[in-house]
């Protein structure tokens, strides 16, 4: 079980350390601690249920960034077989912040693509903290075009704090690369399922996020800007991130409520990192059931419905002339 607790889980962390001690004592055979263990386990679950039923926007942002949370390659490894990773955009290089390739889910071949974060300093550097450069988006598009060519569905896993802001990214056309993906994804002739598995920050997320189904895992966020940057621009301080997170309505429930995503994939109590197996199973089940629906549609039906869905997003009013 996870031992990296959030500040809002202090109460659980304390009970958990008692539980670990109790289990050790019990295991040594000196004392029968089974009653205590049972009691603590029950108490922890109760506390978790309470805390996780009333999470704030900012707390969900924190969970989406937990260092032990499963990343794209963890999902691929645990829900797919026969993964063949494909590299490079054929122009500049291979962007390690986006991974992708052929994989089988329950025997069906799909093109699976996602942003990849690193777990330690070295990996984080290699993966650029999950912040893709233009060549990452161009690699993603190349793979999607392959999927279209061979008539296989596309699955994208979104987990990025944003597209990389840097000299080279601008020189190589970060804006153009993302824009091109939005255009091409909207008319791709195969089913596309997009799942926010962690952070969904702005254009960097949307760059692989135009799909027939856009799903969010329960404790993830998706918006036009991170709460920290929003706070810095609107309130001119980094300290209003909690306020900003609430104002942006960036949680899965808010996004679903506003009709901006199609569904929510439940996570285990305490977040995906508490029980990755359960998270993998839920994601796999969602992909399989959505694929079944989408595979029954013709390419034309898919594209028309996809464009109609995104065209309907927005709230405007007609003023009297």
């Amino acid at each position, binding site marked *: 079980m996870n031992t990296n607790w959030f500040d809002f889980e202090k109460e659980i962390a304390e009970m958990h350390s008692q539980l670990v001690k109790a289990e050790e004592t019990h295991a040594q055979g000196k004392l029968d601690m089974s009653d205590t263990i049972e009691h603590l386990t029950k108490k922890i679950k109760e506390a978790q249920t309470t805390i996780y039923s009333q999470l704030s926007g900012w707390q969900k942002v924190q969970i989406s960034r937990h260092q032990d949370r499963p990343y794209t390659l963890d999902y691929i490894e645990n829900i797919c077989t026969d993964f063949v990773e494909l590299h490079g955009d054929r122009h500049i290089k291979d962007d390690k912040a986006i991974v992708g390739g052929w994989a089988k889910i329950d025997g069906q071949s799909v093109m699976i693509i996602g942003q990849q974060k690193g777990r330690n300093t070295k990996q984080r550097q290699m993966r650029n903290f999950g912040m893709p450069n233009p060549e990452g988006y161009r690699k993603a598009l190349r793979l999607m075009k392959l999927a279209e060519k061979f008539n296989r569905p596309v699955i994208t896993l979104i987990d990025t704090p944003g597209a990389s802001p840097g000299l080279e990214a601008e020189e190589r*056309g970060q804006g153009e690369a993302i824009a091109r993906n939005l255009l091409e994804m909207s008319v791709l002739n195969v089913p596309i399922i997009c799942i926010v598995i962690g952070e969904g920050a702005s254009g960097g997320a949307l760059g692989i996020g*135009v799909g027939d189904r856009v799903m969010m895992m329960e404790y993830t966020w998706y918006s036009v800007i991170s709460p920290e940057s929003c706070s810095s621009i*609107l309130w001119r301080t980094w300290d209003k991130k909690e306020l900003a997170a609430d104002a942006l309505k960036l949680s899965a429930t808010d996004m679903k409520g506003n009709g901006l995503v199609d569904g929510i994939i439940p996570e285990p109590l305490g977040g995906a990192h508490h029980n990755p197996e359960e998270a993998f199973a839920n994601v796999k089940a969602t992909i399989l059931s959505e694929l079944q629906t989408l595979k029954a549609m013709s390419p034309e039906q898919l594209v028309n419905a996809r464009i109609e869905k995104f065209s309907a*997003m*927005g709230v405007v009013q007609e003023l009297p002339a």
Partner: protein
Amino acid sequence: MAVNHSDFDDLPMESSDSTWYKRTLSGILTKTKDKKPTPDGLWEKCKRCKEVVPSKEWLANHCVCPSCHYHERIGSAEYFEILFDDGNFTELNANLSSGDPLNFVDSAPYTDRVVVAQKKTGLKDAVRTAHGVINGQALCVACMDFAFIGGSMGSVVGEKIARAIDHSLATKTPFLMISKSGGARMMEAAFSLMQMAKTSAKLALLAKAGIPYISLMTNPTTGGVTASFAMLGDFNIAEPEALIGFAGPRVIKETIGKDLPKGFQSSEFLLEHGFLDFIVDRTELKATLSRLLSHIQD
């Protein structure tokens, strides 16, 4: 045509870092006691080279300094006047106005900000769309207004551009987008973000129908606007010395911890790196558009 710089002090856009109007090298460093006031309406002073030009001449030159070619920022009214024959055009969806889907409040409620911006500018939102004729050729134009909350893109901007593209599709008319924006409008959060997908999807339909799309980028074009319709032209063109980029200069500077090279993210920089077809002086814009379209329109 004087631009009030205090308008740009508080720009709630994703890439809002306002670096482009802090002219530390030239321009607004004149001390108050050194300022030489000129009577309103008779003369215009170039913000860059300080050349004083009769207002009539300044306007006839489309607010471009005759001496140093500095392109003063102008809005949709001026672009429509410059482009459409005899200044005649039909505006589309002129009364679309913003909702407040998120009940967004920062230091002021979003609805108040919209009302203030509408009163101040006389505009309904940050884009106007119209169709008309330029040198005899039918054209549908969407033009952004920076004066309205920094030209930021919310639902109205996305919807009006989408409907203008629908008009181009229905009438088989070429589409011109004049971008001028700090990016997505934060107070509509993910609704703003999805306008990127909406407008790009519509442009995909325009491309499929074989209808020309020209994207003109003006100072500034950044953030979600760059990462959607602005970069998707069959022809991507720009006014000289415009700031064009995805991330704002301050964000990049903070990320890399170094000063940015001179001219970074300028029109000239983008042309050099292969993202623009050409740079066009505003005084040549109408003639150039006609010449370009003459090659592809029957």
